[in-house]
């Protein structure tokens, strides 16, 4: 059976988001060894430009749906338009990103098309001719395999879960342009507001020490600060919940809806390792995780895994390190009596 697969591209103006290329990997995995159609849909005013880039990079067919006036995501318009498009031309699978926009339109789209929906997909499993989709549950402590029978199947892909599909410049793709006038008065875009993490010093720091709910109390954030002080050019950060609890300001939030950091060294202390946090720090050069739970998902991406209570480990680390440094300084001083 050949499968028809549509991918809804994510883009910001002319810039294609990385998850769009990861969606192609998802589509190819669904397709397996069978022949079939894969095509992209990209929506927005001036959709042709990013559509050109996408077809050039993937060699696939890209439908550029030009919607005058749609300069940023609008859920009502996406839902209306995509339901119309996909009832005119049906697909077996519709792949969207598990981003703040994909999460917004995908579930509704599956309802209006009478299909099924699986969100936060991380992988595709082929077993005895049946396709299953793997996704996290229970904060990543469990991986669930779901199957879908009713078509179309609307899937959202967890960003970062699959590798981007390698760029393909040999195959010639194509762009098919359509202009659609569409407005919606139930949801009107009125503007934007900058992120509270704008201008935060986190992104520039060489060492970031972050705390999560595992610190248990606002005052225990001092352990995070003490640890950070051992390193020059360091900054302190945290997971979203401790910002929500007002233990630290949102400017310090690391993750998909906070700051994305890529320091030389990242400490995750009392952080479970939810995908939304990992997306914001996985490019750190070296990751040290301290967590009392040996099954914490954060250990899957850490370079050094330490199963300990952070409230005991951090003070002991600081004390031991300072002692060693003092000894080293003393040795150095003995070696050169003129230097102080």
């Amino acid at each position, binding site marked *: 059976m050949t499968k028809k697969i549509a991918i809804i591209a994510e883009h910001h103006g002319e810039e294609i988001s990385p998850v769009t290329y990861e969606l192609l990997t998802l589509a190819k995995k669904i397709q397996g060894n069978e022949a079939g159609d894969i095509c992209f849909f990209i929506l927005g005013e001036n959709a042709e430009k990013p559509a050109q880039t996408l077809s050039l990079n993937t060699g696939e067919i890209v439908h550029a749906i030009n919607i005058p006036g749609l300069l940023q*995501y*609008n*859920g009502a318009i996406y839902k209306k338009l995509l339901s119309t498009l996909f009832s005119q031309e049906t697909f077996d699978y519709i792949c969207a990103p598990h*981003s*703040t*926009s994909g*999460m*917004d339109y995908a*579930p*509704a789209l599956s*309802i209006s098309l009478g*299909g*099924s*929906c699986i969100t*936060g997909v991380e992988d595709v499993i082929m077993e005895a001719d049946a396709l299953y989709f793997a996704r996290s*549950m*229970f*904060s990543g*402590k*469990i*991986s*669930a*395999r*779901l199957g879908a*029978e009713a078509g179309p199947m609307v899937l959202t892909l967890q960003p970062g879960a699959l590798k981007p599909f390698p760029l393909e410049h040999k195959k010639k793709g194509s762009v098919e342009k359509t202009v659609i006038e569409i407005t919606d008065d*139930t949801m*009107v875009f*009125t503007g*934007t*507001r*900058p*992120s*509270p*993490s704008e201008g935060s010093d986190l992104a520039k720091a060489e060492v970031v020490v972050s705390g999560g709910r595992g610190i248990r109390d606002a005052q225990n954030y001092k352990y995070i600060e003490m640890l950070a002080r051992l*390193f*020059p050019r360091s900054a302190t950060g945290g997971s*979203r919940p401790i910002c*929500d609890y*007002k233990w630290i300001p949102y400017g310090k939030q690391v993750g*998909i*809806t*906070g*700051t*994305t950091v890529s320091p*030389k*060294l990242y400490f995750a202390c009392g952080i479970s390792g939810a995908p939304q946090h990992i997306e914001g720090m996985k490019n750190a050069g*070296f*990751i*040290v995780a301290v967590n009392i739970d040996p099954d914490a*998902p954060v250990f*899957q*991406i850490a*370079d050094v*895994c330490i*199963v300990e209570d952070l409230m005991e*480990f951090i003070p*002991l*680390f600081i004390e*031991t390190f300072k002692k*060693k440094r003092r000894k080293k300084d003393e040795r150095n001083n003995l070696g050169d009596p003129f230097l102080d």
Partner: protein
Amino acid sequence: MKILVCIKQVMESESMVRINDSGKWIACSASTRFEMNPFDAYAVEEALLIKETFSGSTIHIITVGPEQSRDTLRKALGMGVDEAIHILDNHIGYRPPSLTASWISAYARDTGYDLILTGIMSADEMNGQTGPMIAQLLSIPCCTAAIHEKIGPDETHVSVEREIEGGARELFDVKLPCVLTLQTGINCPRYPSLSMVLRARKKEIHVIPAAFFEKRDPGVTLQALQYPEKKNKGILLNGTIESKVDQLIYILNKKALLV
């Protein structure tokens, strides 16, 4: 304003998560403790804040779940909501969100709610589907990840700030009735007050058996649960805490990360 808040009961966040014998759900014992989905506490609180501004508002809460989920309704009643509806479904295990959404929307149809609030996701299943599906089933707008909302004085629109990647916000004017799914941090959920809790105990909960609703094929089935494959790329430090400290100092020194 007539507000409906959807709340779900989930296992307490630090519970042991072990797969049961069927391989299709989590093992529960007498000592397993449950709580209101932490993401839903923001929805209850937001409804209470709206009621403080628009006096005369009513807040209903609804849950789909087994007998025991009534405790969670009681907790929300203790926070100050007016009435509780329980769609009783004794099935323990994965219930696809489209099914939950179809029952809630069937209940909410023609009941005149101006606003339906949900959490951004359930802490256990992490679907993020139920709210947007309810809206679509009712053919009303939905705005997800709301981090700020303000209802217009004529109560026909709500201004919503929705949070996107990087923490920036997109502002929308949304027509009522609508569904909002709330991002964490939109408010600080209150604790139930003792007097409210006492009063809540006496409140009647409106129970509707799930069988009352039209059967619907959710189209999705859970085949199996597994523990994630451990593909740790790093090293696990062994030994006493003192030895782990020494090892970490040694590793960081070698990598020239400590000076």
